[in-house]
C-alpha cells in the first residue's frame, strides 16, 4: 500500500492505495465522491473527467499514486463555481441532459473548453468533445448549451 495525500475540492485527503488503483477508484470508493462516473475504465468515454491541477483528465487512466500532491476538482467541488453554474443552467435550458450519466464528465469538459476557448465555434466544440460519449442526446443540445454558455460568459 502507498500513502498519498490529495487536495480534493479544496480539502486535503489522505489515502492508502494500491499501485494499481486509479484516481477514479480513489475518488469513488475511498472518498465516496460518486458524481464522477465510470463508463469504460479505458479512457475512451470521458464519464470520469475531473480537473487535475486545472487540466481536464480522465480519472480512470490516471493512477492514484501519480495523483499524490495534486489538486483535484470533481463535479462535487463545482457547486459554487460561477462558470460551472452558468454552464449548468444552459445544459438545463437547452435540454442537454437525458439519462444524466455522462453529464458530470460532460460538464467538467465543457468548462475546460470554455476556459481555453472563450469563443468556441460549433466545429471546435464538437472536436473538443470527441472524447466524451453521450448515448442519449445526439450531442446537438450539448453543443448548443456550451456555445450559449460561452456567449453568456463573454458578456459577463
Amino acid at each position: 500500500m502507498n500513502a498519498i495525500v490529495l487536495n480534493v475540492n479544496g480539502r486535503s485527503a489522505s489515502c492508502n492505495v494500491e499501485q494499481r488503483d486509479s484516481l477514479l477508484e480513489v475518488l469513488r470508493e475511498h472518498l465516496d465522491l460518486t458524481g464522477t462516473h465510470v463508463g469504460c475504465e479505458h479512457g475512451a468515454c470521458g464519464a470520469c473527467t475531473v480537473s487535475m491541477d486545472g487540466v481536464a483528465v480522465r480519472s480512470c487512466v490516471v493512477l492514484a499514486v501519480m495523483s499524490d500532491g495534486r489538486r483535484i476538482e470533481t463535479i462535487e467541488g463545482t457547486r459554487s463555481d460561477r462558470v460551472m453554474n452558468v454552464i449548468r443552467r444552459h445544459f438545463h435550458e437547452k435540454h442537454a441532459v437525458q439519462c444524466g450519466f455522462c453529464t458530470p464528465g460532460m460538464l467538467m469538459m465543457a468548462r475546460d473548453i470554455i476556459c481555453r476557448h472563450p469563443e468556441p465555434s460549433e466545429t471546435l466544440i464538437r472536436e473538443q468533445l470527441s472524447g466524451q460519449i453521450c448515448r442519449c442526446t445526439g450531442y446537438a443540445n450539448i453543443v448548443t448549451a456550451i456555445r450559449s454558455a460561452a456567449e453568456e460568459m463573454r458578456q459577463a
Partner: protein
Amino acid sequence: MSHHDEPDGWIGRSLLRKEDNRHLLGASTFVGDIRMPGMQDIAFVRSGSAHARVVDIEKPAGLEQRVYTLADLGPIWSLDSGPEMASFRSVPYPPLASDRVRFVGQTVAACMAPTRAEAEDIAQQVVLNVNELPVVIDTVDSLKPGTGTLFDGWTDNAFVHATIAGGDIASVAGAPVQLRRQFKMNRQSVAPLETRGIVAWWDYRLDELVVYISNQGPHVLRHGLAQTLGLPEHKLRVIAPDVGGGFGSKNRLMPEDITVAAIAMKCGHPVRWIEDRREHLISGVQAREHYYDLTLYAERNGRILGLKGELFVDAGAYSLWPSGPFMESSMAARNLPGPYRIEHLHVETHTVATNKAPLGPYRGVARPGACFAIERAIDELAHELGMDPVELRRINLVRAVDMPFETIGGLSLDTGDYPVALEAVVEMLDIPAVRARQARGEKDGRRIGIGFAVYTEQSGHGTIEWTKRKSRVVPGYESATVRMLPDGTVHIAVGILNHGQGLETTLAQVAAHELGIDPSQISIRHGDTGTTPFGFGTFASRSMVFSGGAVAKASALLADKVRRIGAHLLQAPLKAVTISAGAAHAGRASVPIGEIARVANIRPEMLPPDVSPGLEATATYEPPDSGGVYSYGVHATVIAVDPETGVVELLQYAVAEDCGTMINPMIVDGQIMGGVAQGIGTALYEESRYDESGEPLATTFGDYVMPCAPEIPSFQIKHFVTSARNTLHGIKGMGEGGAIAPPAAIANALADAFRDIGAAFNETPLTPRRVSDAVARAQGDAA
C-alpha cells in the same frame, strides 16, 4: 378526460425537465453510487471458449468459500423464455454454466471479495477445464446440413422457423420486373453509458431481499427473479434507481442478476456487481444481426406488387426471459412491407442459435433491419426502372385517404399523411440544389449522395398485439396512484421507469392538466416495487401512451373528488365548479386546492356528508384499440464520401415526422436527435464482430466504435401533428423512431453517390473499409 374548461396549457408546453438538477450537480444515484456497510464485490469467471463441455471448475486452494459455482447458489428454477409457441425450442439459460458453455463471456463462477480488484484476483485463479466443441458462428451457415447443434436433441440450429405471409405471392410470379437483393445488418452492442449493475442484500427488518438494479422494468423483473430464486414476490423488492440509459438492453432477466441475488440470500451482507465495459461488450444484450434475401415484384410503372424472401435472425446462444428472440424475427418480417401498398408478402424466417452472446431488444427492435432492407430494395428498384427514388415512393406510399390502412404485414397504420412528410424532407434539404452540387463535383474528389428512408413506429400497443406475439408477459396496461397531500401537493406513483425520457416532467404535465395545479407541485415516483403500483416498465415506446393515460385517468378521478369538496366549501352546485390555476372556482368565488386538500386529509369534519376522507386514486389504462398507434416519418440525408478512404461525412440530416400530439415538444426533439445518433452508429460505426472461433473482436471502445460529437451532424426537424384517434390527448409513442431509418437513409445516400458505377452498400455498419471495398469492387467490375 379533462373536466375543466380552461386547462392551464401544460399539454404541449416545452417545460424544462424536473429531473435535470440532480444530474447537473453530480448528485444522482445510479446503482454504482450506492454504499452499504459491509458490502462486497463480485467478479465473474467467464468462459474463454465459444463452445465447450465443462470438465470441471477448480477453485483456488483456501479461497473455496469465496467462489460460487452453480451448485453453490442453492436451488435455481429455470424459466421458459421466448414466445408461448409449440414450435419454439425453449432451452434453459443457467445463471452459471456447469456442464457446457456456448459463448465467450458466458458466466461460469462468481468470486467475492471486499473490492472488485481482489475479486478479480480470485477469479483469475479459478481454473476452468473444458473440452472444446465445434463452433457455429455464421448466421446463415448455422442451418447448413451437417452443422453440429448447440443443444442436444435439436435437429438444426433454429430456435424456430416461421412463415409470415399475406395475400398470394404466387399470383405475382409473372410480374414484369423482379429484383432480388441480399442485405445484412450486422450484430451490435446496445452500450448505454451506464453499464448494468446490481446491489443486493437481505433486509432483516422487512424480511425481504432488496435488489437495486439498473433496469427498465422492475416489476416484471421481480416476477421473473422471484420464480428463479423460489422466493414469494412479497419477499423481493426490486428498485431501479437512476438508470443511465437502457434502450431495451436492461429489460431482460440476466444470469448475473440471478447469481448476485442468490449470493445475497446466502452470504449475510450486501453484495455488488458492476458490469465493466468489456463485460458489457461481450456478454451484455447484443442486437440486430439480420440477413435478408428479398425479391421485389413490380410493374414497369413502378407499382410494387409483392415481396418475397427469407430472413435469418441470429439470436446467439440462448433465449432471454421473458420474450426471447422470435419477436425480433416476426416484427422484422411484418415490418418489411413498410408503409407501402404492397398486396402480397411471403417471408420465411429462421431464428437461429449461434455461439455468440444472446440477442435482445435495442431501440427500434427489428425495424432498423426491416427498414434498411425494404428502403434499400426500393432504391435499387428505382434505379432498375430508371426512376427517381422519391417518385417511386410517391407511387407506392400509403395515402391519407387510405387511412386506416392495414399493411400486408398485418400492421394497422391508424392516422397520418405519409406523402406530405416525404415532400417535406425534399423541401428541407432543397434537393434540386443538392443535385446541382452533385453534378458539379467536389474539389476535394469526394462524392455527394442523397438518401431517403421512410419508417413507421408501432407504439402504445397492448393486449391484442402482445397476445398476437404469443408473449409470456402481456404489457396490456399501466397503473398510476395519485395522492394529494394535506398541503395540496401531489405524489404520483407509476409502474414505468424513467431513465432519460423525461417522464418525471411529462407525466407531471399530464397530471397538472387534470388537477389544475402547477407541475412543480407534483412529484413522480417510479422504479421501486415496494412503493409503486404494478407496471411493465419503459420500453416499446409505450410509457407516454400507457402511463400518461393511467396518470390522467387517476388524476381525473381525484379531480372529481376535489371538485365535490370544492363545491361543498363554496356552497355551489357541483356542475358550476371548475378547477384551474391551483383553485376550485364557482363564478367569482374560489377556494385554493391546498385548502381542499387540508380538509380532505386532516379536517374531515368539514367534508360533505357523502364524501369519504383522504385524496387518493388509482387507475389502470390501456388505449381502447390495443393494436397500437403508429408514429411515422421520413429521414433524408446529404453525405460527402471519399471514394479512396471510404470515410463518410453527414452534411445534412432532415427528419419530418408525426407522433400525434406532443406533450413536451422539447423532449420529443431530444428523443428524435438521440435516436438518430444511435441509428447513425448502426449505419456507420458500431459492430460486435466475432472471429471464426467465436472470439469477440470488439471488447473495448477502441474497437467498438461509438459515435461522438464530431461524427454526428446537427439536425433539421419538422413536425406534423395528426392526433391518434383513440389515445389520451391523441398522443403516439415516439421513443424509437429516430433509430429506425438512419441505416437505410445513409446507405441509400452512398448508393446514390456511386450510382454511376453501381457500388453496392447492402451491409451495415458502412465502415470506411466496407465503403472503400464496395467502391473498389464496383470499379473492378466496371474495368
